[in-house]
């Protein structure tokens, strides 16, 4: 058995990843909107931090939060003009659905699947989130999808 990785002090995690997470948000949202999203990302991370049970894949976890904040920010921007019906029809966003579906996957595959198909991240960004190469991210996502398909067949 592998030993569980201890959860580091938040300061350590923050110092290590703040610049790349900010860079990611700037690419998704542009510089102006990235600033608010940056603060929101790390505040959400703090809110969830006490519930973490181990310190593995924290970087991917942070990217998932950042990606979600970016999606929310896009929706928020669109919503003033968008009619309400749309919100009713589509009450549960796709990414939430996918996160639920992907729950049983190994952590790395789960992150890759969710970031790719839930948040539409590039494999380069996913590689960064997972601390691995673009190619490894591609492989993690595709083996995650394979596993999901298999499970579907077993269920049905």
């Amino acid at each position, binding site marked *: 058995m592998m030993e569980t990785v201890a*959860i*580091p*002090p*938040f*300061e*350590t995690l*923050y110092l290590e990843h*703040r*610049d*790349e997470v*900010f*860079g990611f948000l*700037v690419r998704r949202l542009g510089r102006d909107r990235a*600033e608010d999203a*940056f*603060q929101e990302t*790390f*505040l959400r991370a*703090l*809110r969830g*931090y*006490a519930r*973490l049970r181990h310190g593995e894949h924290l970087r991917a976890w942070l990217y998932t939060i950042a990606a979600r904040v970016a999606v929310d920010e896009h929706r928020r921007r669109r919503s003033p003009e968008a009619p309400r019906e749309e919100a009713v029809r589509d009450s549960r966003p796709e990414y939430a659905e996918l996160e639920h579906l992907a729950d049983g996957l190994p952590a790395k595959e789960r992150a890759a699947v969710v970031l790719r198909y839930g948040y539409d991240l590039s494999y380069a960004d996913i590689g960064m989130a997972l601390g691995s190469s673009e190619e490894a991210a591609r492989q993690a996502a595709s083996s995650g999808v394979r596993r999901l398909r298999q499970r579907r067949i077993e269920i049905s």
Partner: protein
Amino acid sequence: MTVSPQLDNRFRAAAAAEGLLDVAYDVTDSPVGPLLLAVSERGLCRISYDAEPERQLESLARTFGARVLRSPRPLGEVKRELDEYFAGARRSFDLRVDIERLTPFNRSVLEELARVPYGSLTTYGALAGQAGRRRAARAVGMIMNRNPIPIVLPCHRVVGSTGSLVGYAGGLERKEALLRLEGSLLVDRSE
């Protein structure tokens, strides 16, 4: 891409303002060297002479929870009282301290220690007696050595029964400097 200092500060202030931290800490200068100061939601929980905060973060996280973040604002009152103390303008602290996670004996020793007045000295044995274990002078010595909140919990005022300074986790020079500041060390041993 680098996060600007403004954005960084804004996040750190917001994290504290929203009550999301187990521990907020900062590093400040003092006449006895840089000090790491940390507060939990219950009060001041750490003063360390260790100028490399990273070494303290792990231990703070283990003791109080992993949401440890440098955030100056919650430390404002602590810094102000320490500045006044070092300027000779304050003789006692009005700060809440968080020593709840210590053992009961450890706590009662530190509570007795907090009553030792500015400018006076006590001994390890006397402190042990006040905490209800007359013969535990050595244990009290250990507790002083591991005092999580030196200066505010004034372990520098505790000396050996012969009046010798004995020791100080922050180094004897600092113990001397604090006692000199308080006027209780008449002979300057460094000369």
